[in-house]
C-alpha cells in the first residue's frame, strides 16, 4: 500500500502503460475458464438441473409411460430415452439465458466490453463453456437412461454419433438462449422468456409419437426443428427398430436436423453479435 503521507505528487509520475489486450482465442479461453470455475464451484447449478431431469425421466418412464403407445413394437423406454437425452440440451441451455441476463444486469458484460479484447470473445467463451456443461448434462442423462432400462439397439458408433449430434444441437440452441439473455434485462425475465421452449419440447416427437397428436398440433410437431433432431438421435441410438417408426431414413433426419442447427446458429449468432455490438 502506497499510503505514506506524500504531500506533493512525485515529479516523475509513472505513466500508465497501454494494454495491448488479449487475442480472440486467449480471451475466449479466459471467459470460458471463468464459467467452468463457476459451474464447478456452484454445484447447485448442476445438481438442481440433474435432479429435475431425473424426476422428469422417472415420471415419463414409470408414471405416464404405460399409457403411451410408441406405434410399433419398440418398448416405451427405448422410445423415450433418446428423446429425453436430445431435449436435455434445451433444459440445460435455459440456464445460459439466466446466466447471460445476470451478467448484463450486474455489469459483468459491461466490464468485459470495456476491456481491450475482441467483443466476440465474450460470447464465444460463454458458448464454449456452456456447451461443455451440456456435454456433462448429456452424459448424465445417458447414464440415467441406462439406469431406467434403456439399451442401445443400434451400433455403439451410432449411439456416440447420437450424443455428438445432441452436442451440436445444444451449441445451436445455446445461441438462442444467449440472445434471450441479452435482450431480457433481468435474470428473472430471461427465465420466463426461456419457457417458450416448453411447447417445442412437448409438441415434438421427444416423449410421444407426433402421429398420435391431433391435426394442426401434429403439423406443428412435424415441421418444428426439435422433431427431426429427436428422430435423428432416436434412429442412431436404436438402429433399425427405431428407424422403422420414422417416416424417413435416419440419414434424412440427420441431414434435416443439421440444417436446422446450422440455420439456428447463423441466425441467432448474428442476432447476438448485433445486439452485443450495439452501443
Amino acid at each position, binding site marked *: 500500500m502506497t499510503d505514506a503521507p506524500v504531500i506533493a505528487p512525485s515529479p516523475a509520475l509513472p505513466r500508465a502503460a497501454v494494454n495491448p489486450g488479449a487475442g480472440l482465442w486467449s480471451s475466449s479461453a479466459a471467459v470460458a*475458464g471463468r464459467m467452468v470455475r463457476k459451474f464447478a464451484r456452484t454445484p447447485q447449478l448442476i445438481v438442481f438441473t440433474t435432479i429435475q431431469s431425473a424426476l422428469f425421466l422417472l415420471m415419463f418412464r414409470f408414471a405416464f409411460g404405460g399409457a403411451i403407445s410408441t406405434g410399433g413394437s419398440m418398448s416405451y423406454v427405448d422410445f423415450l430415452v433418446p428423446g429425453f437425452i436430445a431435449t436435455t440440451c434445451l433444459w440445460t441451455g435455459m440456464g445460459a439465458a439466466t446466466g447471460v441476463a445476470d451478467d448484463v444486469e450486474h455489469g459483468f458484460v459491461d466490464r468485459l466490453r470495456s476491456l481491450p479484447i475482441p467483443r466476440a470473445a465474450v460470447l464465444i467463451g460463454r458458448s464454449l463453456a456452456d456447451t461443455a456443461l451440456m456435454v456433462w448434462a448429456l452424459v448424465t442423462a445417458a447414464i440415467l437412461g441406462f439406469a431406467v432400462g434403456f439399451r442401445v439397439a443400434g451400433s455403439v458408433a451410432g449411439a456416440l454419433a447420437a450424443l455428438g449430434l445432441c452436442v451440436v444441437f445444444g451449441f445451436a440452441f445455446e445461441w438462442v438462449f444467449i440472445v434471450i439473455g441479452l435482450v431480457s434485462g433481468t435474470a428473472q425475465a430471461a427465465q420466463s422468456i426461456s419457457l417458450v421452449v416448453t411447447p417445442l419440447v412437448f409438441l415434438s416427437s421427444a416423449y410421444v409419437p407426433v402421429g398420435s397428436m391431433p391435426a394442426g398440433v401434429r403439423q406443428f410437431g412435424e415441421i418444428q426443428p426439435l422433431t427431426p433432431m429427436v428422430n435423428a438421435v432416436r434412429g442412431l441410438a436404436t438402429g433399425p427398430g427405431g428407424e422403422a417408426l420414422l417416416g424417413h431414413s435416419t440419414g434424412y433426419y440427420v441431414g434435416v436436423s443439421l440444417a436446422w442447427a446450422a440455420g439456428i446458429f447463423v441466425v441467432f449468432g448474428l442476432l447476438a453479435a448485433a445486439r452485443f455490438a450495439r452501443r
Partner: protein
Amino acid sequence: MTPILQARGLTKSYGKTRALAGLDLVVQPGRVVALLGPNGAGKTTFVRAVATLLRPDAGTLYVDGIDALRRPARVRQVIGLAGQFAAVEEAMTGRENLEMVGRLFGLGRKEARAAAVRVLGQMQLTADADRLVRTYSGGMRRRIDLGVSLVGTPRLLLLDEPTTGLDPGSRSQLWDTIRSLVRTGTDVLLTTQYLDEADRLASDIVIIDHGQVIAAGTPAELKTRAGDDMIEVHVRDPGHLPAVRDVLAEIGHDPRADAAQRRACVAVDDGSSRLMDVLRVLDGLGIAVEDISLRRPTLDEVFLALTGQPAVQPAGAPSGTHTKEASS
C-alpha cells in the same frame, strides 16, 4: 499536456429523453474529477460514452488524445471501468478475478500474477486473496471490483458511484485508495450523488444537470462562485423562527428556516455589516439567539442554487441505496 478527457457538444438521446444535451468538458491529467448531479442528469451516460459502451449521437470525445468515436478499441487499452455493481465473479477468489482480467488486458501469465499481487496489496486484500469473492463483505467486494479495473494500470479510471451502499468506514477507506491512485499515474473520473463524497474526494467537481455541465471547478471555487455568504441564526425558542425568517428576508435573499434544527439562514451580499444589522433587529424584537454565524455556503447550498433542487442524502442514510438501484 494532452488533456486526459476532452468532450465537445456530446449528445445522446433515448427516444424523447435527452441524456446528454451538448456536454462540454476538458479534464487535465493528474486530477480526481467528480461528476455530481441529480438522478437522471446524464452522469452515467457520459461515463458509458467515455468507456466506449455507448456511442454519442453527436459531438467529439477524446480520451488521452484518442478519438473515442472513431477508435474505441484503442480507448479500451487505456481505461479501467468499475460500474455501479461489483462486477466480479463470485465463484472465483479475489486473486483469480484479478489474474483473469490481467490476462484479458493482454498480460502474460507471470505478469498477470505479479499484477494481481500488486493490486491485492494496493486494495489491502492480500490476506483475503484466496477466498472466494462470495464470502467477501460489501466493502471488500467494492475494493476487489476497483482492483479489477486497476489491473491494467489504466491512464483513466472510470468509477460509477463507487461507494453507493457502503458503510461510512468502508467509504473513507475507499476514498483513500482512490486518492492514492493519482500518484501512480492514474487519473480518476467518478460519478456521485453525494456532496460530501465530491467535496472530500475530488480535486475538481463537475456539476451536471439535464445532460449539460452547469458548473465546474475545485470545491472551493464552486463555493465562491455560488457567491454570497450565508448568515445562519440558531434560535432558542422554535416559536421565534417565523419572525426570524421575516427579519432575514428583509436583509438578504432566499431565506430558509428549518424548524427541526431551530435554524434559519439567508444569503447576503455584504456579510459582516449585515450580520450586525441582524443582531440589532433581533435584539430589538427581544428574540433570544443561541448562536449566529457568518459562513461560506456549503456544497449543498451551491448545488441547490445551481440546479434548483436539493442533493440526495449522504450514503449510509437508510433511504439511499435501494431507491438508487431501482431507478438506475
